[in-house]
């Protein structure tokens, strides 16, 4: 943690801006309900799709509700579902990868083949089929998004673990008679944690894009809940007026994902040119 902070202090301006955006969203997602100037579902404006004003910072939506307040609440679903799904995907993928690598043989063969199969289904297509079959309550959406990105994480984690497992200190641990679980936890995992964290950030970006895409199609977060993608969908009729109600949530997603992406790229330890 300390290292990443000192890294940030000496980083170029763009990196600090990106980090600022990401931090800003994380804080807003946590503090949203206390910051929001209006209740999330209240009809507070006579006009629909009104523009920016002192009372309604980002205007009002298609029913005359405050866009800024709805944005703050929506960000919670986007950020927390995204983080949850990315973490779950990374945990499952990495656990499977470690298991496959250290077991080798048939186990590796079967797991790898299964993951290869899943990775051959484009992620949006897989998510759509899963939503059609299972529905889209909030816990299900979390599981679906996680499952969709397990194979991608598995592939990276397995490649990393394969390289590490061939090294002498793992062979030494094996010779000492340590169990597979102990080797995975104490020898292999600590040495691949940095690239895995970068991958986690990337998965977070993918999940946020997938989730808001699903919500935009009306297949993701269902009313009465609304994430940022749902906000874009419900205000789509304001597009011809150029209402802030549709642009603000779409821009909010972009700031979150682009910021995360730039931050990951900047924190990458010396990319090979």
């Amino acid at each position, binding site marked *: 943690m300390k290292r990443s902070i000192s890294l940030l202090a000496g980083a170029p301006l763009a990196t600090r801006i990106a980090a600022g955006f990401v931090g800003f969203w994380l804080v807003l997602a946590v503090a949203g309900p206390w910051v929001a100037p209006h209740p999330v579902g209240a009809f507070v404006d006579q006009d629909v799709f009104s523009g920016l004003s002192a009372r309604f910072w980002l205007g009002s939506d298609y029913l005359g509700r405050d866009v800024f307040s709805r944005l703050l609440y929506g960000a919670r679903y986007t950020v927390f579902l995204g983080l949850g799904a990315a973490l779950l995907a990374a945990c499952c993928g990495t656990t499977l990868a470690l298991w496959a690598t250290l077991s080798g043989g048939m186990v590796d063969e079967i797991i790898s083949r299964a993951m290869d199969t899943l990775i051959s289904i484009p992620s949006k297509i897989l998510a759509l089929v899963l939503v*059609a*079959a299972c529905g889209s309550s909030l816990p299900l959406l979390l599981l679906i998004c996680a499952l969709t990105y397990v194979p991608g994480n598995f592939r990276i984690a397995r490649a990393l673990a394969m390289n590490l497992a061939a090294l002498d200190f793992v062979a030494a641990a094996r010779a000492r008679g340590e169990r597979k679980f102990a080797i995975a936890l104490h020898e292999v995992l600590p040495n691949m944690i940095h690239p895995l964290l970068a991958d986690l950030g990337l998965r977070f970006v993918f999940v946020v894009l997938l989730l808001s*895409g699903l919500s935009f199609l009306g297949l993701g977060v269902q009313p009465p809940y609304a994430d940022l993608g749902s906000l874009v969908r419900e205000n789509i009729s304001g597009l011809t007026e150029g209402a802030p109600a*549709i642009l603000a949530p*779409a821009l909010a997603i972009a700031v979150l*994902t*682009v910021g995360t992406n*730039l931050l990951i790229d900047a924190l990458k330890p010396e990319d090979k*040119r």
Partner: protein
Amino acid sequence: MSGAKTGKASLWPMVARRVGSAALTLLLVSMVIFAIAGLLPGDAAQEALGQSATPEQVAALRHEMGLDQPAPVRYARWLSGMVQGDAGQSLVAGMPVGAIIAERLPNTLMLAGMTAVLAVPLALIMGITAAIRRGTWIDRAINLASLSMVALPEFLVATVGVLIFSVKLMWLPSIAMVSAEASWSDTLRSCALPILSLTVVVVAQMARMTRAAIADQLDRPYVEMARLKGASLSRVVLGHVLPNCLGPIVNAMALSLSYLMGGAIIVETIFNFPGLASLMVNAVTSRDMPLLQACAMIFCSAYLLLMLVADMVALLANPRLRAQ
């Protein structure tokens, strides 16, 4: 001479192995999709008849639709139907799935094709420029732009496009109308916004991977040799470097074009484009499983086919890959 001969002789088994592997993966994918679709709570017969149906009616329809048979039998029947081009009946439209798809597929292929025609040269130019001007502000600008574009949600690109080009400037229509009677220029005009949106979405990844592939080659001794001989940088890149990274570049193109399939889902929906992806979204909304399964299989086949082609090109372009 004999080396070339053995190289040739060993090419075909490798091609056959890759084709076989792709076919096996496709078979496994079909199992996954069939299995997920089978998770559906309630079944199609109940859904088709509604709540008021008697148990006998439901049982009769289940029998008629073959739903009372064990899953492996249903899977085998579905798969053999798909192979013969008969994907079953759509539950909602009451038409053969094949007929519905045949109407939509050409539109999606056209959209993907036109996007590729625009995006591939653009990505090549961006990637090559960034690689040649490594470390300069142009490289940094392209890097920043492509990193941002990768993470943009498709609907932001599309809505901003609509706002600028159809609401403010009124140059382009915001709804894509495609019909057989429309002239080429009309079709192109009405598809301009979807094509532009998709291009923004796919071009970034292609450009980044092109840059990485070329930048990797530029450090090799043979490039230095060619430069020392007095060849110009553009000549070295076009004549020496590009052929050497054909494999990775084609791979990047294939990956990005396969992403077109997923990206098209949002873009087709926004512009009301009558393509396969928006058809699939409708199938999800109405829980029309036969239609959904068929669409998913087409997308997965397209993905595997693109990957296979990229693999083949890499194999042909780089003899060292054929060595083992």
